[in-house]
């Protein structure tokens, strides 16, 4: 099966590395990061899995121009959510009538973006939970966590989507991941989004790591409110999640494990001063809240603060 990773940054390269380690033999990377693409073509991909070993794969084809990749059987998009639409448009030269599109991108609404370009039967969505890094061109690092670390499923069951789901499941698994395929993947996506709304939204605005926020009485209240509003919106969308139970789960099982960690969106905002995925997280909750007439003032305020800040990185104290 001819697989393309569209958006082969840290996460895309790691997911590609696992597929390759699992035996995927026709793998292409597409990314505008030319130094990385050149390094993969010239020296192969150096794939470090913390606690497991180092691997070098010299048969991955890497392109900055999607037109050169040829028509793909499966196009796996691993961009930022805010880049997905332009990534799909840019990748159209390697999309054929039978190509299945896969989004492994965090956040809500990625399925809707793919539906602008692909029939539902040709769409798979999901997301991974694994720390990734790209310390230098040609070298990616995976920091695997225990438990299921790759979730996905077809939007609408079809022969094509089934074939790709099976292929991905087998090759992720053989590559050392712990994947799970779902008949209805949306509840999993929602839970991941709600967690990210809480930790990404609050850490970005407060400039604090995940644990110290929960330790503070006001911070813990903010987490609760973000989760509570998002659960109400999820229910309105047809995915009921008990807010109290889920909050306890997040406090006990998620934040404790990431106590001393800035989630990726907070890294974007605080460290790298990059555009964030706020529109696919708290911004999306606020938008859906308006659509369903559900009050989401905390998610909305967080979204407005992050959006105002990311428009003005050059003026922010102390560097502006």
């Amino acid at each position, binding site marked *: 099966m001819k697989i393309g990773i569209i958006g082969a940054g840290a996460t895309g390269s790691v997911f590609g590395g696992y597929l390759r380690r699992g035996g995927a033999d026709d793998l292409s990377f597409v990314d505008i990061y030319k130094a990385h693409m050149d390094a993969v073509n010239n020296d192969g991909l150096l794939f470090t899995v913390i606690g497991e070993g180092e691997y070098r794969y010299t048969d991955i084809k890497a392109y900055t121009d999607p037109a050169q990749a040829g028509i793909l059987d499966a196009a796996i998009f691993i961009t930022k959510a805010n880049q997905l639409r332009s990534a799909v448009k840019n990748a159209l030269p390697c999309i054929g009538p039978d190509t299945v599109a896969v989004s492994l991108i965090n956040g809500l609404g990625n399925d809707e973006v793919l539906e602008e370009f692909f029939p539902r039967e040709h769409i798979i969505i999901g997301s991974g939970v694994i720390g990734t890094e790209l310390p230098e061109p040609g070298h990616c690092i995976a920091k695997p966590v225990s438990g299921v670390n790759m979730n996905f499923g077809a939007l609408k069951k079809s022969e094509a989507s089934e074939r790709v789901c099976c292929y991905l499941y087998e090759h992720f698994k053989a590559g050392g991941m712990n994947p799970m395929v779902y008949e209805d993947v949306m509840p999993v996506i929602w839970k991941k989004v709600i967690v990210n709304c809480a930790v990404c939204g609050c850490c970005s*605005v*407060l*400039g*604090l*790591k995940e644990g*110290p*926020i929960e330790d*503070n009485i*006001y*911070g813990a*209240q*903010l987490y609760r*409110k973000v989760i509570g509003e998002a659960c109400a919106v999820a229910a309105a969308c047809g995915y009921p999640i008990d807010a109290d139970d889920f909050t306890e789960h997040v406090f006990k099982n998620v934040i404790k494990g990431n106590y001393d960690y*800035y989630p990726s969106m*907070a890294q974007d905002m*605080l*460290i790298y001063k990059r555009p964030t995925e706020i529109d696919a997280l708290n911004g999306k909750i606020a938008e859906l809240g308006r659509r369903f007439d559900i*009050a989401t*003032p*905390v998610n*909305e*305020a*967080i*979204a*407005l*603060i992050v*959006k*105002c*800040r990311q*428009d*003005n990185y050059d*003026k*922010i*104290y*102390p*560097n*502006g």
Partner: protein
Amino acid sequence: MDHVARDGMLFSREGADDIRVSGFRTALSAENIGKMDIVVFVTKAYQLRGAIIGAMPCCGENTVAVSLINGLGNEDVLQEFFPPERCIYGSGTIATMLPEPGHCKGFPPKGTMINYGPVKPSAYTDAAGKFLHDKFAAGGCPTLYTYDIATLVWKKAIHNSAVNTVSAVTRLPQGCVEDNEFGRKLYRQVIAEGIAVAKAKCGIDIDPDEFINSFFLPVISTGHDYFPSMCQDMLMNKRRTEIDSLNGAIAEYAQQFGIAAPTNAVLAQLVSCMQDSYDKQYKD
């Protein structure tokens, strides 16, 4: 206190020559200094209750208590200790600095520099108000003693709840926030909620458009690149802010009166969390 007692106070004002004023009596506590006719409190809002308790030895049954402190609720704290007919409250619009002991500096704005008025008008408050007004005026500081102080205090508190707090959480100068569509929306939400709460709590009618066009925007446009005082507390000096007497007070009153002020509430929680956690915050 030692410098002022020994050498007087060096008083600098932008646009005027420095002068040295003397004749102050100073003390580190209010014990054994006699009873005052007027006690003026100029602390941070969250320090007021403690300051009054400390000042009680110099307060007698005729003393008028004056709060010239920014924010909401200072008049309520005064009334925990003094009857309303002996309470005056309000605040100044003059920027100040204390560059070294014995030396203070003022940046006088054009026009009125302090607004204040009685909680409940009486012979006490009016005599004290007239005395302060006359002496401030003779000292070069025009003030306004008015029975409609509540409206002025609320307008200033609503303004500061928007500008101070949103600038602090976005870490941006006040004008840059207004220039951005998302920042502008936050400002407008804070103001709209504040106006509704002022109506519910004090029966004050503030027209939103009039407030924004003739009060809020002129201040922002004259200090486009200015970081308001809460930014200075939070971003530069890592001090406790006055959030409780601004957005925190608006959110609390809203809850008392059963109206919605969710944007003020979330901003208050964000700032409260941040000021508890300066040592753990990301540093550029």
